[in-house]
Each structure stands twice: as C-alpha cells, then as structure tokens.
C-alpha cells in the first residue's frame, strides 16, 4: 500500500494567554491509498483540527503534512486551493449549502469551480443525488430538505468530483442508522479503490464495520484502537 497522507509531529495551539489550548499535540498520522480510516474521540479532542491540518485547510504550528510525498504546506495559497479542489472532497461538520441554489447546483459546485461545463456538472450532480437517494430533490432549494437530507447533499457534493482523498467530518451525524450505513457502504464499495483514501471522523458506531482502521483521539493525542475495544464501551 502506498502512503496517501502522512503527518509528522504536527501541533496546533489556539488562543492566547490563559485561554491558550494545545488542540493537537505532536500527532503522527498516516493513511494509505485503498484505506478507510476512522478517527473517533470525545468532543473537543481535536478531531476537526487534525482533519483540517491534513487536508490543507488549517496550517499546523509545527510539523509537516505530505500527501503522496509532497509537502502541502509549502504550497502557495492559490496552489493549495487548486490542490484541495482537484484532490480532496470535503464533508463539513455543518453542511453550508447555498439556500438560493438548487440542491443539484449545490452538489455541482466543485465541478463548476473546476471550470467544467455547466450542464455536464449538473447531470453528474443528479447522478450523485441518486447515490444518496435524493434524485427527486434535485430542483429544490436545500432549505426545503430535512437535516438528514441536507447532510446527504453535502456528501454528494464531496464525492462528485471523485477525488482521491475524501475527508468527512461526522458525515452521518444526522442520518438514521440505515441511511448512514447505506451511504457509507456505497462509498466503501464504489468509491474506495486502491487509488483512493478516505478519512472519516465519526461518533457513529453503526458504521464502524466499514473501517479498515480506527484511531482514537483524546485530548489532542492520537492512539490506535481495536474495534472490539470500542464496541465494549
């Protein structure tokens, strides 16, 4: 297996003086192509911070992040943006869908940012809305959708460009067990390949079965963990 993402002793502090928190503490992290890696852990343990640093959104205060051997944090702002656009698909903890665009247009945004043809982008968006079971919502604005449906729209937006690295922050938090499982299963079966790598932050034990590896984050530190250990909790 080739290494997709490698973070070497990365650190992140927030705030000043008394409020200063060490959110990510000297973390080493590795994810390989062909792998679906989960990060679990209590709220405030630094999961989102870690994801942001390994995906080129938040600059670590120290340490290095390489993706396929290339140091992403040495890229200039625009080059890094282009890198994220071409290689990474994101599901944010909140969905951040544009209320004035249709669901399909929201899903198509990454392709539109890649300057793809409009109609082509929208037909691909409809394809992925079908994947998340929302093919009949394509023309509605996201505000007409339930929370769970909006989350599925966000997932469709993350996978539409078939990026080789997918970073999902709690993608199933507002989905019922079956829907969440179905979607993650689809992602696992149809999108994961030996050229792709998926990192998922989750609290959702119902989808643990799809993970290749589960890491536990606690108070800014990452430790490996066995599934049985989690199931026992």
């Amino acid at each position: 297996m080739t290494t997709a993402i490698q973070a070497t002793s990365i650190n992140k502090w927030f705030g000043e003086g008394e409020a200063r928190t060490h959110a990510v503490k000297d973390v080493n992290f590795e994810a390989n192509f062909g792998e679906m890696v989960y990060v679990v852990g209590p709220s405030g343990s630094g999961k989102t911070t870690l994801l942001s640093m390994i995906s080129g959104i938040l600059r670590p205060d120290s340490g290095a992040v390489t993706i396929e051997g290339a140091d992403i944090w040495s890229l200039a702002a625009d080059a890094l943006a282009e890198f994220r656009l071409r290689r990474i698909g994101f599901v944010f903890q909140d969905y951040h869908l544009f209320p004035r665009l249709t669901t399909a247009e929201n899903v198509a945004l990454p392709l539109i940012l890649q300057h793809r043809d409009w109609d082509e982008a929208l037909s691909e968006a409809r394809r992925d809305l079908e994947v998340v079971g929302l093919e009949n919502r394509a023309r509605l604005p996201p505000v007409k959708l339930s929370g769970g449906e909006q989350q599925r729209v966000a997932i469709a937006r993350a996978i539409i460009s078939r990026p080789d690295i997918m970073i999902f922050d709690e993608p199933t938090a507002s989905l019922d067990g079956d829907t969440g499982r179905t979607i993650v299963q689809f992602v696992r079966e149809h999108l994961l390949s030996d050229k792709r790598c998926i990192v998922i932050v989750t609290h959702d034990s119902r989808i643990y079965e799809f993970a290749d590896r589960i890491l536990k984050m606690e108070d800014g530190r990452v430790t490996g963990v066995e599934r049985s250990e989690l199931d026992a909790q």
Partner: protein
Amino acid sequence: MILELQSGILRIAYKLLVNDRTKFAALLVGITFAVFLMIEMTSLFAGILMRSSATVINIGASIWVMDPSVQTVANAIPLPNYVLDEVRSLPGVKYAVPLYSGSALLKLRDGSYQAANIVGLDDTSLIGSPQMVAGNIQDIFAENAFIAIEDSEFYKLESPHIGTEFELNDHRGKIVGLARVSSSSLFGVPTLYTTYYRALQYIPNTRFTISYILVEPKTPADVAAIKERVAADGYLALTKDEFMSKISRFYMYQTGIGTNMLLMTLISFIVGLSISGQTFYTFILENIDRFGALKAIGAKSRELVSMILFQATFVALTGYGFGVGLCALLIWLARAHLPDYAAMITFLNLGLAFVMVVIIAASSSYFGVRKVLLIEPFDIFRG
C-alpha cells in the same frame, strides 16, 4: 477569456444574487432611485443652463463683445457706438455688427399685455436671423415688421399668424413671418425678431444702444488678438462657448439654483449609496459561511472576488438602466404636459450618474470583498 473560463462561477454568482428576490429588489430600487434622482436633477439643471444661454445659441455669432460687467445674456449693458467702430477697425475682424437684445411689453389684440424678448438684428447683414417657417426674412424690412418665434411660448402671443397685429409702446407691430430657433428661453416669455433700428425706434433706450457686438474673425487664429485688443479698450470679447460657460457659471454659483441642484444630486447619491451599500453588504454577510465553504473546497480568492464584483456590477448596471429609463420616461411625460419643462439629458449627466453608480458598486463590493477574503475556511469546517 477570463470571463469565459469563469462563466460557471459567474452563473452561480448571478443565481445567488437574483434568486434572493427581496434583497435583489431592494438593491435595484436603491440604485434606480439614486440614478433617477441624480439624472433628473442634473438634467433639469442642464436644461436650465441651456435655456439661460438661448440667445447666444440662437444668434450663433463666433465672438460676442460686451461690457465686462455682463453676467447673463438677458441683462445686456449697452455699449457706446464708438466701440463698434473700433472693433470694426481691428485687424483680423471679418465683420462686426450690432445686436439689440431687450424686452418690451406688448398689447395684444384682446387688450391684454404680454412681455416679450425683442431681438434686433443688424439691418445690413441680418446676422443671426432665425430659420423661417412662414414668410420671407426680407419682409423684416417692411413697415412695423416683426417675426414671431414658434417656441413653447408662442401661444402667449395668441398664436399669431402672418398679418397679426399688436401694439408696442404705442407703435403698431405686425407679424410678417414665423420662424424657429434651436433653444427656447428660460424666462417663459415669447420672442420677436425685428431689425436693429426698428428695435431702437420702438423701445425707449438709454444713451447707449448696442446690447452686443457680434464679431466674425477672419480666421480662428485671429480670435486671441481680437480679445486682447477689445480688453485693452476696457470691454470684453468672448467666444460663443466662453460666453455660454460664463452664463452657466453665473446660474450655477451666483444663484440658488446651482447649489440646490448640487445638494439634491449629492443627497440622492448618498441615499442610493447607503441603501445599496447596506443591502449588498448584508447580502454578502448572509452568504459568508457558504463563501467560506467554497474557499475550503478550493475556490481561489480571485474567483470569490470576481463573483462579488460581478454581482455588484450587475446590480449597478441594471439599476442604472432602470434609472435612466425612468428618467427619460418622466421627462417625456412632463414635456407632453408642460411644453416649458426645461430638462435635458446630456451625455455629461449620464456620465456623471454612471460614475456615481460605479462608486456605489465599488464601495459596496469593497466591504464585501474584504469580508470574503478574511474568512478562514477552518471556521467553516468546524461548523
């Protein structure tokens, strides 16, 4: 090319803007209103300025010699005859003729009185004669002859025709022709043309009688020397354009009209700026986290900026179009009902309003752009 490449992004920007009906309407109303007021005010002013120079425009002489204290063409200060002789003797002068410009009280056939402008054209040359629509200009030499100008005030002379008679200071006057001029006067009184000498005979005068001396230089290069020599004699020679701007300056700065118009224009600008600026800024703020999401996904700052600039430009141009249209419509309507309505949309007015709209758009987008450039994608990621 850049626009072509980003057309999908701009299309998104367009949809974000237009699909937000309420804000889009508020933005349009703000800009339309501001543009309308700015153009209406300045057009009204332009119309007034134009009409205040009506005589200068209609006579059309290249150079006007006058007393230095003259402020507007309507208030001529008579010049002694020797000035005419001196001007005629200047090298570079092709010809110089006197012009009478004054006002008189006419007694119409129904016994009512009506004030009128009287223009007396030089008897030998008839320099500055109007364009005849009925009768012959030579009839101006006939006994008691006057030519009536068919402008918006014409009806105040009881819409005369050839042969209509009236009284002017106990002299009989008779209309021998009807003519047109390019600009009506500001003061709402009708205009009659006659010869210089008849004007002097019919209208009581001060010791000096020449209102203006109209000069034609031999070549345009002679103008400067003529002006200099006239100035040496203590009088003022102005080209047609200089005279018109002098009159405009008078109305602009020495009467209340100018300052009030300027103030109104400024107020409409500020109102438009604050309505549209405020609305546009709220519009950006409302979408700020989604702009942040776009940034996280991989939109470049340049692309986000172009989205905002596109939105601002689009609203500004649409509002500008509506404002200009509304203004043209209103002036047209007003003219249909008030022939005297002195508004005139000039390219300068349009340009001025355009510049102001550009300023409104630029300053509204400035704050939006700043806001969008400052968002941290991480904050979006964290929710």
